[in-house]
């Protein structure tokens, strides 16, 4: 890959855009199509492209498999703890209304917060899971 300047330069330009787009999709899911799941996949595809360009070793230095693996778990934990937080705030499991400061008059605030956090959890899990699956396949092929 060292000599493929065009590929390297274009990807270097492209990868930040992909990450940015992923973030857009992540946080704009309330208004347009998209959400945590799609954003996660796009984010992961950015990392996959990075791996293809710089090679597995450097990619794994930047995104250490152990950390990725923990992130997969963290995403699920975020989702679950939002549910638990709702329990603790006196609501039912995943009852985001309970998260609002004023659940009676402005339940939407709680809903917004809940959806945001939950989508974040989904995004993290999906991105990390896809990347770790990809790394697992590539690693297997090397040795």
């Amino acid at each position: 890959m060292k000599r493929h300047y065009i590929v390297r330069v274009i990807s270097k330009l492209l990868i930040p855009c992909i990450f940015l787009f992923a973030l857009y999709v992540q946080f704009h899911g309330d208004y347009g199509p998209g959400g945590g799941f799609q954003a996660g996949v796009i984010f992961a595809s950015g990392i996959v492209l990075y791996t293809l360009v710089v090679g597995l070793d450097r990619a794994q230095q930047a995104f250490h498999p152990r950390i990725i693996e923990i992130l997969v778990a963290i995403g699920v934990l975020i989702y679950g703890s939002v549910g638990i937080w709702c329990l603790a705030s006196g609501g039912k499991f995943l009852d985001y209304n309970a998260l609002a400061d004023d659940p009676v008059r402005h339940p939407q605030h709680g809903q917004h917060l809940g959806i945001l956090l939950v989508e974040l959890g989904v995004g993290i899990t999906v991105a990390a899971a896809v990347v770790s699956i990809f790394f697992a396949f590539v690693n297997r092929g090397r040795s």
Partner: protein
Amino acid sequence: MIADHLLILQVIVPLLAAPLCVVLRHRMLVRLFAVLVGWVVFAIAIMLLTRVLNAGTVDYNLGNWAVPWGIECRLDSLNAFVLLIVSGIAAVVLPFAPHTVKDEVSGDKQYLFFAAFLLCLTGLLGITITWDIFNMFVFLEISSLSACALISMGRSRRALTAAYQYLVMGTIGSTFILIGIGLMYMMTGTLNISDLNDRLQRLIIVNQVPMFVNQTRTVIAAFAFLTVGISIKLALFPLHAWLPNAYTFAPSMVTAFLASTATKVSFYVLLRVIFTVFGVTFAFQSMQLNTWLMPLALVGIYIASTVAIYQNNVKRLLAYSSVAQIGYMVLGLSFVSVTGLTSSIVHLFNHALMKGGLFLAMGCIMLRLGSVQLQDMKGLGRRMPLTMAAFVVGGLNLIGVPMTAGFISKWYLILAALEQGLWLVAVLSLFSSLLAVVYVWRVVEVAYFQEPERPAGGELRRLNEAPVSMLLPTWMILGASLVFGVYTEFPVGVARRAAEMLMGVGS
């Protein structure tokens, strides 16, 4: 406060414990943690069952959305009972784990193994408590994907192909279920189980009015797809191809867990879909489901038991016997009577105990002997007396000898057959026990009445009895099957209540 949320905690505790395992990572910590989670889950299940028995069904609306908008979880005497079985087996199997897992899974992957195990438990519990048919599909997938990963951890390379076969068959099954759910949803517009039942009944009644001529053809197809899909998951006789390999090659602890829970939960799903979603009238009067199921169950019992007799791998022998036992459960269902259903549900409970115990005993043998081939087990009765005694107890259960739990379920099955005047069926199911005698006897004969072959010139390898942490769970679970063979009020009582509820009689 926690008491109100027990129902959802039943699923959430193992669900969150799984990612925590990945974060914890340390081998000892993860092991202890998993055992702890297993016990907590079991304790919750006991509390829930007592509550259901005392106060009737328990509801929980997730996100506090009323049905049909949100997802509902509901517990009645049937699924509370299944919950008890699944979590009980998990609580017993988890302490059993360390020795066998150390043997079968490499050290730095053990936390993943336990995480997968907890996920499988989550999936099974989730299927059991949910009252939303699509949610059921989601948890079904959690349990079957994690089960597939667990099966593939077996020592032999054939574990891989077994897992692949399980994955493909399972996915076909769940896609069929998905089609069935889709068709049903199309005709009713809802996914909640009570709502579905309501609207389906209305469809069937409206059907008489000319405006909706034959509106039910789609529903009939939905019923067919759901039944076939679940039957694949259940490993009902002609669709059982995945089961023997999966049970034979999976790690011992996984076999013990799956054999005593996964098919049981599938059977629960079958009951739920047939009785609660579609209703007795539709399933058995319009569709005549029982005329299909009864011969299938009987043929399944005979063929699987006969095949079991010719197996030389004892795990495989027990796997085929499982296929036969599923036949008994379905046979009980096909009588469409309270007694028949009681026998099915009691057998669900008893078979979970006996097969769990038997496969745990196999795990002990695998650990010490390194093989479960029949010819290697010669003289094992004297070399590992406690383990083999456990096997004998389990075997007696399988045959259905009086004073064991197995006897109770057979008794009710035959009672149900006689109730309907089906003499032939009663005689046939009694006679099929003889086949069980044959395959259990084969193992017992080899283990107790044959001398172990000494390696040429050398001394026989000394075998230690399995460690206490493995023997204790094995005996606990088989001991329970003996206790419930004598004190039958508990399982039979709960099962009868559940059966009456399903048939729509009594409370």
